[in-house]
């Protein structure tokens, strides 16, 4: 099969978005596009790790969630009551915990192996754990007890939410450094499962530590400056006048306008990242990365520090995923830690995008992300669509109430086998993806 040039592929996807806009609604098309731009950035991060360096990271959801956490920590107003109640003690406890772990690592590395070392480690870690809990528990409880219905967490820094993109990347990078230090020495599937595990632990912490991000109670109102709110636009006289002039309902126009503002912001971020990554890939650094990926032993023999390079790209890729996580929470105006507990949606789906687009090719990852997101989100409304168009279906389905109800109820799940099938077909017939690596 002769491959279509990338421009044509992007054209087809663009056409698909326009069709969604014309046939369904422009609001939907823009919603999908915004989600698509965010997952495209996630896919870029995964592509860096897998496509450039061959690292199998399936803890994507964890880093994505950490990016979201950054939004809460940056944009929530400063909470002086929480500071008085226990924030400093919590921070102290965390520093203490980190110190215990550091001391544990030092003990392990510096003492000679034997019973004495085991004993020392045991005393240090068990004692450290209970001391940590002694400081931490009372402080966390004190913070959580403050107006639990409204806040009950440590609040944030009260800074503009856009800053959280950077902070999200930074948080994810720090976590990735820890993960890499512990897990990158592992081989093959052991590494993959370790990253999956650590990702799940990160999410478990976000779900359960209410003092941090209110856990299952979620955080809303994270702010979205510079993007305006729909409600404000709808009350703005100039905006209403413009809507009238264009013959549009102000409400619809405000949703579309806000959506487009996000699209513009996200596109800028995506393009900046793409350019940086393309430059990096073409630089000697990128060539070295691919050399390491293709033959680790040969690269090592050439004097390349494989371990260090792996650590570096793991951290960079995870930081990119963290940035996407922060953008995602800003777009939806909601941090819901429980929602991340679905590796299918937040990890494996991103992998499907990278494979579909072509591992190792940044443009491919973006294309794959837009296509898969389009499928995923379109299936969301399929049940409703079928319910209102039952008469168009064959009479076997529409004639029988039980069958038609089953079809309507299950329509949304068709996206799972469809995406699975796409993934399998690509792997089988075009393993290098839609836009192969050069």
């Amino acid at each position: 099969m002769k491959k279509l040039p990338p421009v044509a592929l992007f054209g087809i996807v663009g056409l698909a978005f326009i069709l969604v806009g014309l046939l369904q609604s422009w609001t939907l098309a823009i919603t999908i596009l915004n989600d698509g731009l965010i997952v495209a950035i996630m896919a870029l991060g995964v592509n860096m790790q897998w496509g450039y360096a061959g690292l199998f990271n399936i803890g994507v959801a964890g880093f994505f969630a950490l990016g979201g956490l950054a939004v809460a920590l940056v944009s929530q107003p400063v909470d002086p009551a929480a500071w008085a109640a226990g924030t400093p003690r919590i921070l102290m406890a965390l520093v203490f915990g980190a110190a215990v772990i550091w001391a544990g690592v030092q003990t392990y590395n510096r003492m000679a192996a034997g019973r004495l070392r085991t004993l020392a480690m045991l005393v240090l870690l068990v004692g450290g754990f209970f001391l940590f809990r002694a400081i931490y528990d009372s402080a966390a409880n004190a913070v959580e007890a403050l107006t639990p219905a409204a806040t009950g967490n440590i609040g944030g820094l009260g800074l503009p939410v856009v800053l959280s993109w950077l902070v999200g990347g930074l948080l994810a990078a720090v976590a990735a450094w820890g993960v890499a230090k512990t897990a990158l020495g592992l081989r093959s599937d052991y590494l993959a499962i370790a990253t999956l595990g650590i990702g799940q632990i990160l999410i478990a912490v976000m779900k359960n530590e209410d003092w941090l991000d209110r856990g299952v109670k979620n955080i809303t109102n994270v702010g979205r400056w510079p993007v305006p709110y729909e409600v404000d636009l709808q009350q703005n006289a100039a905006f209403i006048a413009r809507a009238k002039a264009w013959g549009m309902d102000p409400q619809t126009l405000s949703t579309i306008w806000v959506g487009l503002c996000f699209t513009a912001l996200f596109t800028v971020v995506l393009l900046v990242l793409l350019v940086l990554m393309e430059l990096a890939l073409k630089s000697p650094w990128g060539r070295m990365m691919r050399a390491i990926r293709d033959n680790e032993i040969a690269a090592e023999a050439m004097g390349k520090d494989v371990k260090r390079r792996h650590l570096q790209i793991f951290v960079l890729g995870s930081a990119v995923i963290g940035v996407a996580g922060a953008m995602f929470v800003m777009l939806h105006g909601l941090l819901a830690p429980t929602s991340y507990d679905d590796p299918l949606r937040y990890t494996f789906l991103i992998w499907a995008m990278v494979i579909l687009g072509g591992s190792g090719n940044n443009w491919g990852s973006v294309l794959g992300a837009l296509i898969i997101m389009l499928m995923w989100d379109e299936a969301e409304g399929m049940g409703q669509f079928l319910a209102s168009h039952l008469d168009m279906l064959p009479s076997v389905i529409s004639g029988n109430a039980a069958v038609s109800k089953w079809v309507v109820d299950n329509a949304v799940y068709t996206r799972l086998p469809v995406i699975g099938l796409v993934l399998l077909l690509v792997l089988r017939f075009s393993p290098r993806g839609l836009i192969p690596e050069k």
Partner: protein
Amino acid sequence: MVDFLNAIVALLNYVIVPATSYGAQLALGALGVTLIYGILRFSNFAHGDTMAFGTAITILVTWLFQSWGIGFGPLPTALLALPFGIAVTALLLLGTDRMVYRFYRRQKAAPVILVIVSMGVMFIMNGLVRFVIGVQEQNFADGARFVITATQFRNLTGLDEGLAVRTSTVITVVTAVIVVAALFWFLNKTRSGKSMRAFSDNEDLALLSGINPERVVMITWLLVAALATTAGVLYGLDKSFKPFTYYQLLLPIFASAVVGGLGNPVGAILGGFVVAFSEVTFTYAWKKVLTYLLPASLAPDSLVQLLSTDYKFAVSFAILVVVLLFKPTGLLKGKSV
């Protein structure tokens, strides 16, 4: 002395009995993962969904039997339906192998490609399960609920603490013992089992000595179907069935297989129990047991819970990471491809 007995009973009731049955379920699941890793040499991400599929079919057959008025006395009807669930799952797995995995096996594709392929299979099976039975929670346990209830136990022994033993717990443990014994008998004593182990140890040597690889692979999938369906049905009888829960069960099952050492069946069983017992002991509130054991002046006023129960899965992964740090291929030496 009475206090000591009470402490023992409380420990049995809240920690040892639940952890044993959970451990047995994880062990059966992990055995499936580890067999695939040993023979086909990849981590099968579709394993949780295979379990869900087998259980879903078993539930459907159970409902059919119930509508016909067929029961199994005090035992759950699902045990009668289990062979049918296994058979359908076996067909699904063999079909998947024929249509998907065989191609890559012949190509001698890198193991990591097979892992990604299994992600695709996971998506498909995940949808399939939802089509077959829906997303809701299903309770399909029938028959007697308890072998002995807490009240009966208290009346019988005169202790303050009760020990409730649920039928599902006994069934889980008995079934698991039978299945594991049969599996090890098969692997160690029969010709097919020996050829499987030979293939797992050294593929080239096994091929040279005339072992038919396709046959080995087929037997593996049959065993995996039986193990996964049994594990899924036992878990469902013990708790309940929900596709998403089963999908998530993949995580502790992987943890068990990896902790024990991928490709090592004994390791999978050990891993299952290590993970189950650490999950339960770390998240159990030890106040009750300690109150019985310690003198009144030392009795704890807090719950003495090391971690909140929400960290259940996190515990299994923490164990996984710690084990891997010190033994990079698991407690009992596993393979690494």
